């Protein structure tokens, strides 16, 4: 390990305080980053992780405290100042120009020039070299938008490499990557660490934090809890420090998976052979009343594609649907909503939250869309619905007039869930509802799902975290490479078994369904 204490700190933040209207976001927080270490910042949503990072990168100005980089005191008025000081950030949700080519994105602002201006051949050659360092080999002339989010994330990281930074901040870099891609990224991170780059790593995946970190700083409610060596901090202690209480709640939820479902009546939803050319091979899906059906599969396995066809977000070109035993047409979100099916997308920012509307307006939007524009939900009725669901899901801050875009990821997810629950659906499709949110919010959302299914709501639950899927779902549909490879009873299988199944089983079936 490289985190010997005698190494002089590269970045030192002392007594950082940031006050937002009504909230003390950071309260005299100290943070110390040494060259050649990977340092994780851990905390629940709202703990102050993002605020601390934004103070360091010049997005926010600080109310008090000092920032020293390489022993010199710095005041960052903008992100450009921070970049000039050698601090680069790769954000959670890819922030690149999707309408430019991969090469242009990687080299933006640093294109090699010749007498005629930008030397495009050299630009793309350079870009390809930086990408090759990450083990990515692709045509740099292709549009960024034509690549998966995973590749876009790697492009974002290689862009930070172009800036030749001394400090690299990775804010949830792995939330969209599959296991191989994470390994690839971590290889690069270790390589950079060996070269003396200081890396701040933020992730909600505890495994990854322990795999890559030398040191961990824990924040809670805007205050510093402490700084620890990763190998001296047992996992349970870390979680306790983050949430301030021992987390046993998740165990209570375990009962949900063992519940028996009455499958004698016609299923609420039966999809037979639904597929779309080039998107998903025909798949079958049954969901009974009060059942939680999990969908397991890697990113890009077809799990999201399957539920988008069910919801009508994309139109299926094969197969048919039955609802309560009756044939039904599900070709647009409106149809699905009329049949009391709700869908919460994995892509919260693009397809979920209306960032510039308030929390209340976001929650009421689902009901309002159902009622039509003429019958506005207003006054006491609006207040009651909004207050009820803010309380039921524990949205924080519990202020209906705050813009939804200013909430943390976990709270935005709760707002989305609230929007759909307020419409009283019979079936709710949750695509990665717990992605990129903290342990506490995760537990809240899982508990809510279990509770609702007990009350008879049917749920389709997609998550990359297989523990979650197995804990909540009675049956698990397994997807791979855009094929359905099987349906398992969750009581028959554990996480390792499920991983093995995803990796090795069902080759025969998938061959069959191609034809």
């Amino acid at each position, binding site marked *: 390990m490289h985190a010997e204490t005698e190494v002089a700190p590269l970045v030192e933040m002392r007594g950082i305080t940031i006050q937002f209207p009504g909230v003390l976001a950071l309260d005299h927080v100290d943070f110390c980053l040494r060259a050649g270490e990977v340092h994780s910042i851990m905390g629940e949503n709202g703990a102050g992780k993002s605020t601390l990072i934004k103070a360091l990168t010049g997005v926010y100005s600080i109310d008090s405290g000092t920032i020293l980089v390489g022993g010199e005191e710095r005041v960052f008025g903008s992100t450009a100042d921070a970049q000039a000081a050698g601090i680069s950030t790769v954000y959670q949700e890819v922030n690149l120009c999707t309408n430019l080519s991969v090469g242009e994105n990687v080299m933006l602002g640093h294109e090699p020039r010749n007498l005629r201006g930008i030397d495009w051949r050299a630009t793309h050659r350079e870009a390809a070299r930086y990408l090759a360092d990450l083990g990515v080999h692709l045509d740099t002339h292709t549009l960024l938008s034509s690549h998966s989010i995973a590749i876009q994330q790697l492009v974002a990281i290689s862009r930070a490499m172009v800036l030749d930074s001394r400090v690299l901040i990775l804010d949830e870099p792995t939330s969209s990557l599959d296991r191989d891609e994470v390994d690839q990224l971590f290889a690069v991170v270790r390589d950079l660490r060996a070269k003396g780059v200081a890396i701040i790593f933020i992730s909600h995946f505890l495994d990854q934090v322990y795999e890559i970190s030398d040191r961990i700083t824990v924040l809670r409610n805007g205050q510093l809890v402490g700084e620890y060596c990763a190998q001296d901090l047992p996992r349970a202690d870390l979680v306790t420090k983050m949430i301030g209480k021992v987390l046993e709640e998740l165990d209570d939820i375990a009962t949900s998976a063992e519940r028996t479902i009455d499958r004698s009546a016609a299923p609420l939803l039966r999809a037979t052979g639904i597929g779309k050319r080039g998107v998903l091979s025909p798949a079958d899906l049954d969901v009974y009343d009060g059942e939680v059906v999990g969908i397991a599969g890697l990113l890009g396995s077809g799990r999201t594609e399957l539920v988008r066809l069910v919801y009508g977000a994309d139109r299926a070109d094969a197969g048919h649907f039955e609802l309560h035993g009756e044939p039904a047409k599900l070709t647009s979100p409106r149809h699905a909503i009329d049949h009391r099916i709700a869908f919460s997308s994995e892509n919260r920012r693009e397809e979920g939250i*209306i960032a510039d509307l308030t929390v209340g*307006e976001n929650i009421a939007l689902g009901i309002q869309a159902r009622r039509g524009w003429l019958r506005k939900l207003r006054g006491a009725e609006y207040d009651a619905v909004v207050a009820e669901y803010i309380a039921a899901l524990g949205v924080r801050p519990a202020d209906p007039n705050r813009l939804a875009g200013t909430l943390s990821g976990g709270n935005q997810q709760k707002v989305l869930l609230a929007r759909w629950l307020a419409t009283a659906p019979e079936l709710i499709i949750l695509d990665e509802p717990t992605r990129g949110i903290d342990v506490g919010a995760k537990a809240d959302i899982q508990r809510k799902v279990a509770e609702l299914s007990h009350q008879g709501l049917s749920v389709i639950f997609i998550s990359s975290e297989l523990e979650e899927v197995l804990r909540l779902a009675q049956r698990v549909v397994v997807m791979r490479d855009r094929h359905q490879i099987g349906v398992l009873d969750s009581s028959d299988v554990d996480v390792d078994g499920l991983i093995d199944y995803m990796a090795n089983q069902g080759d025969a079936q998938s061959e069959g369904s191609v034809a």
Partner: protein
Amino acid sequence: MTRLMKHRLFWPVFSLLALIVINTIARPQFIKITMRDGEFYGALIDILRNCAPLMLVALGMTLVIATRGIDLSVGAVMAVSGAVTLTIIDGSSSPGSTSTVLVAILAGIGVSLVLGLWNGFLVAVLDIQPIIATLVLMLAGRGVALLITDGFITTVNSEPLNFVATGYLFALPFALFIWLAAAAAIAIVERRTALGVLTEAVGINPEASRLAGVRSRGIILGAYVASGTLAGIAGIIYSSNIRAADANAAGDLIELYAILAVVLGGTSLMGGKFTIAGTVIGVLIIQTLDSTILFLGVSSAQSPVFFAIVVVIVVLIQSPRVHQWGRALTGGFRTRPGTEVRNDAEVTA
């Protein structure tokens, strides 16, 4: 005071008042309103009357812009509606009868509604980019108007028609009541029903709105229909004022002035949040400026440059960045975190 300054209409209203004050200082009779034959007269009354066509067009434009769109065809729609209305009156045996004029006006408005529907169809159903979709009608519309008038400027002398632009009701210009009614109707429909918030949702995030079950197609279509219809009424007021249907001059460049008014009022061209009151103020600023040019006797050769300079000043007065600099100069140089502008800065990191 600072709370007042944070109100989003503060700077538009400030700009408008500043223009009025400057005019009054230059020539004190600017502010004077006189009563003659039971009717009010004065420069301010003229502004309230003359702004009617631009006001109607800008109100429609506000709704279209809120859906992330733009309507370039409004000037051409004005020409068509004026041509339809005046051609009907001209061809009728009794051009002076109120019923003839009413039928002609309804026909003009009806045609405009259909043109708005066409724009909306191209944008909402065929998914054509708004700037291209409405450019079609912007270019073709005046041709259609010329076809209707046989290439001539149709002049009409009809008392009921003249009343629309130049008549008085309750001692005030009739045209003022038209735009007040339109603005009030739109504000009431948008805010008392859910149309406003659904329009904003569609404008802010179309895909999320679609998945939330919002009928965005209908909302977008409706915005273009409203814009076309309002432009049609504007065209009739314009023609009534000059007592002629001039296919080339009617609503010339009005789409750009309307966009300017919407932006001056504080609605973002990015779509989403919109303000009807802001647009009303924006139009009044432009119209006051127009009067200023006449009032101060700026020569016609200089007036475009004069106009442009004042617009730049008004835009600067409203710019958040300029406010920041202003605060820096006056000593309070620490900026607040968490504003929109600063969050966007992440993108470059």
